[in-house]
């Protein structure tokens, strides 16, 4: 296509694109920033929104707690997903007999987070399926005796649900990547050099896939940082993840809490944006290198 004509054709598309991707986000962010900086009406001598947000926990400031809780939750989830997805993908790549099982990996992909959260609630809650199994086996004496696995301090339910939903996706991604890297040939080469299978898995398979999938992993870490439905249904009222904190502050009857929600939204969006800029520029650098 000649550049002149393609320019003529693509210019309106580019305008639409820029308009749709940049303007709403900036407008929303700008409004939230405005709300978080605006002094509360009719209340003088009150500390500003940002001071309240970042006040020590003893004085009701929740920023650090919320942010670190959300960060920890996504880090642990990603870690556990890798712990399962890497060996699973290995079993699929190197054992042809498992090929028929690959279709089962698609099942969780059909589940919305809301549905998965409900299914795990039915499975893990004190009156849920596992609790009944424990009761039937004589391992627990009743609802109160069963360890709390949902709405618990360790966020077990949230983590398990996220691992259930995302492990198949990462397994499929790793299988794909392993095929692109021609892992079977690499293993034959490693065999010929006298490496044991476990050494190959530890020294070649896992590091290579992790390196190649790093951008994907980080993008999913960002995604998990903004996860909402699962913590909403399976989490505790405190600490809360960032998204739940924001929506709850904005829907409180006490109007003075609304700016806190906006301030957290500003912070969250800025954090994600900074991370993304870092990630994307890194990737651009990698592309230039190759």
């Amino acid at each position, binding site marked *: *296509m000649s550049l002149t004509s393609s320019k003529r054709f693509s210019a309106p598309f580019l305008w639409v*694109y820029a308009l749709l991707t940049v303007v709403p986000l900036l407008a929303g962010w700008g409004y939230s920033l405005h709300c978080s900086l605006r002094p509360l009406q009719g209340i003088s001598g009150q500390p500003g929104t940002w001071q309240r947000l970042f006040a020590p926990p003893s004085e009701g400031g929740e920023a650090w707690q919320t942010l670190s809780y959300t960060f920890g939750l996504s880090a642990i989830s990603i870690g556990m997903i890798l712990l399962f997805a890497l060996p699973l993908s290995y079993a699929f790549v190197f054992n042809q007999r498992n090929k028929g099982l690959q279709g089962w990996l698609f099942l969780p992909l059909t589940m919305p*987070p809301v549905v998965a959260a409900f*299914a795990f609630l039915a499975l893990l809650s004190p*009156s849920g399926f596992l609790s*009944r199994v424990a009761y039937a086996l004589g391992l627990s004496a009743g609802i109160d005796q069963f360890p709390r696995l949902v709405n618990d301090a360790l966020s077990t339910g949230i983590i398990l649900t996220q691992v259930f939903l995302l492990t198949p996706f990462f397994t499929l991604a790793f299988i*794909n990547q392993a095929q692109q890297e021609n892992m079977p040939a690499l293993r034959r080469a490693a065999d010929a050099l006298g490496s044991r299978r476990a050494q190959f898995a530890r020294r070649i398979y896992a590091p290579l896939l992790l390196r190649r999938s790093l951008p994907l992993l980080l993008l999913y870490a960002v995604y998990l940082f903004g996860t*909402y439905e699962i913590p909403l249904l399976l989490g505790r009222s405190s600490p809360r993840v960032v998204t739940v904190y924001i929506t709850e502050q*904005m829907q409180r009857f006490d109007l003075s809490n609304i700016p806190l929600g906006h301030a957290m939204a500003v912070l969250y*969006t800025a954090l994600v944006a900074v991370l993304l800029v870092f990630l994307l520029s890194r990737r651009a650098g990698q592309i230039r290198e190759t």
Partner: protein
Amino acid sequence: MRKDMASSAVLNARVRGPLRLLLGQLPRLLFRLLFVFPLLLLAYLSLQQAWRFPRLVSGEWTLQHWAATLQGHNSLLSSMGLSLLLSGSVALLAATSGFAVSGAVMQQKRARRWLSLAYFPYLIAPVVFAAMLQFYFVRMGWSGTLGGVVLAQYLFVFPYAVLFFSGFWTDRMRNLIAQARTLGASSREVWLRILWPLGRPVLAMGLFQCFLLSWFEYGLTRLLGVGKVQTLTIQTVLYVQEANPHLAAVASLLMIVPAMLLLLINRQLLLRKTSGLQ
């Protein structure tokens, strides 16, 4: 002698066969169970009259929750219709515009940089996006309307579509288009004779992904729909919060059915895509 050995080996295999088979298959069985169990649990709950602790199996099977749903005694069926309409519209809008726009973006000299823009609205949690946009939506009178929710969902599904389709506009595709143009094809003919036939499977796949993205969405719809746009996800959460596990299970299964159907149809495409890479 050799015959003896052979027959004893057969005997051996016959005796040890079932146990070994079971042990060998056990991990595979567990694997299947792991993925299918949550679904089975949902199906079970949807067919139970009541599920009182500590009974594992109550034995009181019923179709009443399904019957009530299909006869319209609750709002699940209408919610499903609304969800189909909503997600269908969002997917159609986002996939078609995303396809064209990604074509324009990928033609740019700094295509990667342009493409980066799409990551921001796509990766910000939709519920936070909605919280920040709520003011504008209320101001414009879009809050609580179907159109408003379509627009809001479009704002994060469209960037995804652009990212998704960017993989289609490879150098090779650009060269094919250039070839068609030098052979005398007009822009319209390039679309009709090259891009449409070659892009159709990719478009179908993108449409499906966009549909699911919208179909799965809860937070943004709740915030901007303010209870007036009752999609299936919203109904599901309502039933969960009302402690009605049976209807929540029916709603959950309704949510999974179209996604599963689409996935079954589209898996061929998925497989073709991976086999092309080998």
